[in-house]
């Protein structure tokens, strides 16, 4: 080898050695270069070792270990190595095991060598022996021991099959040797992993006790990760790894289960939980023979955990499990785990082992049966819960449990000897109901096949039904809790898949319907509605056939035209009937029927001489039901466009505009509600239909082009902008608010805007004006494009000139209104022009004559108006995400961050204005508090520091609306900006106390918000009780009069607030 190459290698080696513990990058670089020389054959391995040689035998520990490290790192990157080289290197590294400073590198090197292709199994025995003879884990740090586990893992991964054949015991011994006394969590994870692997694959007959002890000595493992733990090991990982070892081999059972059961007596709940999890793991993985041997001791040791527990009062297994799983108290979490173990036990007997399963079930059922025969026994409910848990293991277990336990469960039904009390009935229903949950879980949720022939529950169906109908039918109405329970259970059983046939289902739903119509206890009534709602979700046809006709019969029809009064005071008027119908309309199947039937009721009503409120009630009901339907999955209102709207609109429009004898003639509110119904239907339909819908509405309401939309033509056409027809405006604004913005208007945008503006010039009715303004705003927002810029600027400039120039205040306000609504449309789009107008509007705040209207103008800009509610649909065109298939807003042009931008530009200006002082200060303050309530918390928080002092000032303005919104912001400030609030306490608290006084003329809302602020102060720990203590007695004393406030809600808040202040110091002591 050339001299210069030698020196090059030498320098690389020394570079490596000096970089140890200094720079990992350098280490990597030099070992990489060395490896490249070796790989390319420019130097041989022998030459390399020769050059490294002196260091390898150096007397300095550091130097020696660094040089071994250099060798290992280099070898790591060279591949393949010759078989001979591998063998020589192995021997060399093994010899280094005894050299303590080099042990880590030796183990690491061996791990790498084992992983190289060509490494011979023949060497493994040698390695294992040397490790046992020459490596002593006690002498080394955790990071060294780590590599001993890695080495064994590498060997196991590569030679598993050969090891089992040839070195079974040797490998186990080596593992036991290196794993003894390990304490480091990272190494334990490896150790447990190896143990699990060995115990599940190797022949461990002779060594099982040792392997088990090697792991179980750690149980129960607890570990608190140190701060900035580099390995990020969680206690859960360790527990899980340990559980896997214990459950790895049935041979462990004889040691594991008795020891685990013993650990159950631990008083620490976390240990108990860990033990139960582990027992469950064992039950799931040990073989059947083992389970057969041990189930009795597991059952006996766990049953009292449930039987002696005070079980939460819930109605279903799901609720029970959820309640205990989320329990704050760790002790309570035991219950679901024990139930899981029982269930797992049942599930472990396969078909062949019928006898084993029968033994298990019969012991359990016989033991629990004695409780079940007396339904109100203290442990009956617990027994039912256990049975339900076991039965839900699988179909086979289910049949066995049901057929053996139901005779006990239902025994009291035939038992005439003991008196049949209400409490007994109640308990029996509760118990049966729990067991029914296992059917639900197996057949409804997991959809196992249901065979009425073999399914054991079908046998007891008639008895259960008898129990339920009897409890409901024969009990007095005052037995509220029994009746409610029966109703809930009926709801449950009707929804069990395929259990009841149609007739049985109808029978039960009929019994619920009877409760609805007859029971006037509001509690029972409410539960009955809830039960029918449940049924409606899963078996709508039953509701359509049984309940709906009876409810609808109460409403007026052709013959009677009067409301059929019900004896039940819970539904003694139409509104209540409609409410119930709305509640049970839980899916489209019911909705379809309800919509058509209500429509026909409406046509009857309109012909009769009912009051306007009856018609409004029906319209409201339609609105409620349709709004609710928006949440149904896969809901589409397409068919209602054709089937419902033409008839509906004809009835409404005819009533409002044409037929002067109609109860809703010229009724704005009816049209407003009807408009909402139309809006919901349009937004729920496919976007492809929107253009046609829009055209038809325009023909009808604006262009006077016929009545293609209606089922029958009206006797005279309607023009929204003409005198006399203006009350159709709400309908048009709703249609505009609902349709897709990609549609085109049948007339030009400017033409339409001109019509709206000129109508607004003369219109004086405020309601209609609002609708016109909304129409204008919607047109600008949705259909104006860059071609309309000039028109828009022209109009806005003319509005401005009136606002600034006119003498007539009403005229100025009118134009301000026009300007503001146009600007609102632009602000939502984040249009540049909006910001120019904003500047102008801010300047108006300084005009004294406009001081009363200008602040309100800003409120309009940010207020969430219903016509700008955004609806989303997949496939709608969106500028922001043109290719996304995600649902996008289709009905208005809105930029997601427009509010943030609006507030961020406006708030600094308002703050500056308020701080300037002078006459206009108040106007700025009012504006600020008016708009602040529309801002999201995230937007307002950055400004809190500047706003809060101003809010405190605005509390002095005697106006409820302003105070209330200031207080809302203040409450946020208290929660988010404690440091700032702390400084203000001295002014804040007295001011709040003043507002809370009953004799001050502040409304309920202000008082409640005030008290919320006072309460908020005590809740934020960052303000702390020390700062509040000086005010304690003052608050308590000054809130005393508030305890006698007229409003109950205020009194309640005041008493809560006082209670908090009474306990100020007490709470902080502990």
């Amino acid at each position, binding site marked *: 080898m050339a001299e210069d190459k030698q020196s090059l290698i030498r320098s690389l080696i020394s570079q490596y050695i000096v970089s140890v513990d200094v720079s990992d990058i350098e280490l990597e670089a030099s070992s990489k270069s060395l490896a490249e020389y070796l790989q390319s054959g420019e130097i041989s391995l022998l030459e390399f070792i020769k050059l490294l040689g002196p260091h390898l035998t150096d007397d300095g520990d550091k130097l020696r270990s660094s040089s071994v490290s250099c060798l290992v790192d280099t070898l790591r990157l060279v591949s393949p190595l010759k078989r001979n080289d591998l063998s020589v290197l192995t021997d060399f590294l093994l010899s280094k095991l005894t050299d303590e400073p080099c042990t880590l590198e030796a183990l690491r090197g061996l791990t790498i060598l084992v992983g190289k292709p060509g490494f011979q199994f023949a060497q493994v025995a040698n390695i294992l022996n040397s490790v046992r003879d020459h490596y002593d884990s006690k002498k080394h740090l955790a990071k060294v021991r780590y590599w001993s586990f890695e080495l064994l893992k590498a060997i196991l991964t590569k030679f598993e099959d050969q090891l089992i054949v040839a070195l079974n015991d040797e490998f186990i011994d080596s593992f036991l040797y290196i794993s003894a006394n390990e304490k480091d969590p990272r190494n334990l994870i490896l150790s447990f992993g190896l143990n699990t692997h060995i115990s599940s694959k190797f022949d461990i007959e002779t060594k099982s006790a040792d392997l088990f002890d090697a792991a179980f000595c750690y149980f129960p493992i607890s570990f608190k990760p140190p701060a900035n733990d580099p390995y990020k090991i969680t206690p859960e990982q360790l527990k899980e790894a340990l559980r896997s070892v214990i459950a790895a081999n049935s041979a462990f059972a004889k040691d594991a289960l008795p020891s685990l059961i013993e650990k159950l007596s631990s008083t620490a709940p976390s240990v108990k939980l860990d033990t139960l999890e582990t027992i469950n793991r064992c039950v799931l993985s040990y073989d059947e023979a083992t389970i057969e041997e041990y189930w009795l001791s597991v059952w006996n040791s766990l049953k009292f955990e449930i039987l002696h527990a*005070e079980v939460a*009062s819930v109605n279903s297994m799901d609720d029970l499990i959820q309640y205990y799983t989320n329990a704050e108290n760790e002790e309570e979490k035991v219950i679901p785990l024990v139930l899981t173990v029982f269930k797992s036990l049942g599930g472990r007997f396969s078909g062949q082992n019928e006898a084993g399963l029968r033994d298990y079930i019969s012991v359990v059922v016989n033991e629990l049966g004695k409780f079940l025969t007396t339904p109100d026994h*203290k442990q009956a409910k617990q027994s039912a819960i256990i049975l339900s848990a076991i039965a839900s293991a699988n179909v086979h277990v289910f049949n066995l449990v049901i057929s053996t336990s139901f005779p006990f469960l239902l025994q009291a039904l035939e038992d005439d000897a003991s008196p049949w009390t209400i409490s007994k009935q109640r308990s029996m229903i509760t118990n049966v109901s729990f067991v029914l949950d296992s059917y639900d879980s197996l057949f409804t949720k997991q959809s196992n096949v249901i065979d009425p022939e073999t399914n054991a529950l079908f046998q007891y169906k008639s008895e259960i039904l008898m129990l339920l109908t009897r409890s409901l039918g024969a009990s007095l109405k005052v037995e*509220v*809790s029994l009746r409610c329970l029966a109703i809930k259970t009926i709801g449950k059983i009707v929804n069990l898949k395929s259990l009841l046939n149609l007739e049985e289902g109808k029978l039960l739903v009929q019994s619920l319907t009877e409760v609805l119509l007859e029971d006037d206890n*509001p509690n029972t*009534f*409410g539960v009955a509605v809830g039960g029918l709602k449940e049924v409606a979700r899963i078996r709508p046809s039953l509701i359509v056939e049984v309940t709906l006709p009876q409810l609808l019969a109460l409403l007026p029809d052709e013959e009677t035209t009067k409301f059929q009064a019900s004896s039940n005071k*819970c539904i003694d008027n139409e*509104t*209540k009937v409609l*409410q119930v119908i709305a509640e049970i309309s839980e899916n489209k199947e019911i909705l379809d029927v309800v919509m058509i039937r209500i429509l026909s009721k409406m046509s009857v009503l309109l012909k009769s001489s009912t009051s306007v*409120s009856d018609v409004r*009630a029906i319209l409201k009901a339609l609105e409620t039901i349709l709004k609710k339907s928006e949440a149904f999955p896969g809901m589409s209102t397409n068919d209602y466009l054709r089937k419902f709207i033409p008839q509906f609109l004809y009835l409404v429009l005819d009533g409002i505009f044409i037929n002067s004898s109609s109860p809703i003639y010229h009724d704005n*509110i009816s049209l*407003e*509600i009807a408009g909402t119904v139309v809006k919901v239907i349009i937004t729920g339909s496919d976007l492809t239909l929107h253009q046609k819908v829009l055209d038809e509405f325009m023909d009808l309401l604006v262009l006077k082009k016929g009545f293609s939309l209606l089922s029958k033509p009206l006797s005279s056409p309607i023009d929204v902008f003409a005198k006399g027809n203006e009350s159709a405006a709400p309908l048009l604004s709703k249609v505009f608010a609902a349709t897709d913005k990609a549609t085109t208007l049948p007339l030009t945008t400017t033409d339409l805007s001109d019509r709206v503006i000129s109508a607004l010039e003369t219109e*004086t009715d*405020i*309601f209609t*004006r*609002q609708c016109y303004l909304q129409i204008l705003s919607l047109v600008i927002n949705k259909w104006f494009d860059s071609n309309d810029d000039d028109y828009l600027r022209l109009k806005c400039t003319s509005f401005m000139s009136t606002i600034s120039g006119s003498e*007539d*205040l*009403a*005229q100025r*306000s*009118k134009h301000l209104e026009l300007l*503001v609504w146009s600007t609102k449309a632009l602000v939502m789009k984040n249009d540049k022009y909006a910001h120019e107008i904003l500047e102008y509007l801010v300047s108006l705040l300084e005009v004294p004559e406009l001081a*009363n*209207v200008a602040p*309100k*103008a800003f*409120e*309009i800009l940010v207020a969430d*108006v*219903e016509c700008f509610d955004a609806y989303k649909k997949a496939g709608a065109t969106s500028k922001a995400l043109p290719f996304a298939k995600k649902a996008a807003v289709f009905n208005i042009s809105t930029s997601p961050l427009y509010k943030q931008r609006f507030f961020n530009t406006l708030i600094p200006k308002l703050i500056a204005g308020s701080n300037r002082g002078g006459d206009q200060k*108040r106007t700025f303050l009012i504006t600020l508090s008016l708009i602040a309530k529309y801002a999201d918390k995230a937007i307002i928080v950055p400004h809190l520091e500047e706003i809060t002092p101003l809010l405190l000032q605005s509390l002095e*303005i*005697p*106006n*409820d609306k*302003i105070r209330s919104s200031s207080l809302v912001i203040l409450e946020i400030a208290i929660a988010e900006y404690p440091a700032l609030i702390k400084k203000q306490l001295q002014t804040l608290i007295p001011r709040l106390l003043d507002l809370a006084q009953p004799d001050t*003329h502040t*409304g309920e809302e202000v008082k409640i918000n005030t008290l919320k602020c006072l309460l908020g102060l005590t809740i934020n720990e960052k303000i702390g009780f020390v700062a509040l203590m000086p005010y304690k007695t003052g608050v308590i004393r000054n809130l*005393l*009069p508030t*305890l*006698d406030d*007229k*409003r*109950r809600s205020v*009194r309640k808040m005041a*008493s*809560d607030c006082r*209670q*908090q202040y009474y*306990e100020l110091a*007490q*709470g902080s002591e502990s």
Partner: protein
Amino acid sequence: MSGDIINANPTVLDVSQLPTRREKYTKESAKGGQSDILLLNNLLSLSLLTPSGDLNENKAGQVTPPELTDDETEAEEEEAEDPIDAQEIYDLISSISDPEHPLTLGQLAVVNLNDITVTDPRDPTKIGEVLIKITPTITHCSLATLIGLGIRVRLERSLPPRLRIKILLKEGSHQSENQVNKQLNDKERVCAACENEQLLKVITHMLSTCI
């Protein structure tokens, strides 16, 4: 607290069985007319103009800008008065925790809606009375006085001073009914008890579930 539990296994009521102020199905209809007005108000609240009272006068002036800062013109209108009733008292005290169970007095049926009587003259100058009869879970319950004291403290903190509070044990519910009754309604003794820090701590704990 001592380790011995006096009644280890009381009967517990489900929270859903407790009496509450239910308005959903009973009072809704009365609000029907109001909600229509509310609907209109929402729409109109954003108007910059208000209708002027006189319709015939001056056409252009039919609409005038509102006086925004007008001092509470509407706030006063008809603020309905909610009387203090038995349910309100029940709501105040049923949420107190039992000193020995993690349950509330309502759940244990120590306090019952029917055993609360409110005599409120609805006149700030006259004295009214709130009478509560409590039912200890067992007849020898030594904690009856403590429970009574807890209720008294809670009510004194939450009720206006014009209402006098009287707490009695329900007839026949306790062995030493008269003694306990005397103790609970003796002003001096109640005051003295409230100066005992240990006792106050227990009461604080009992009241901690009230908010």
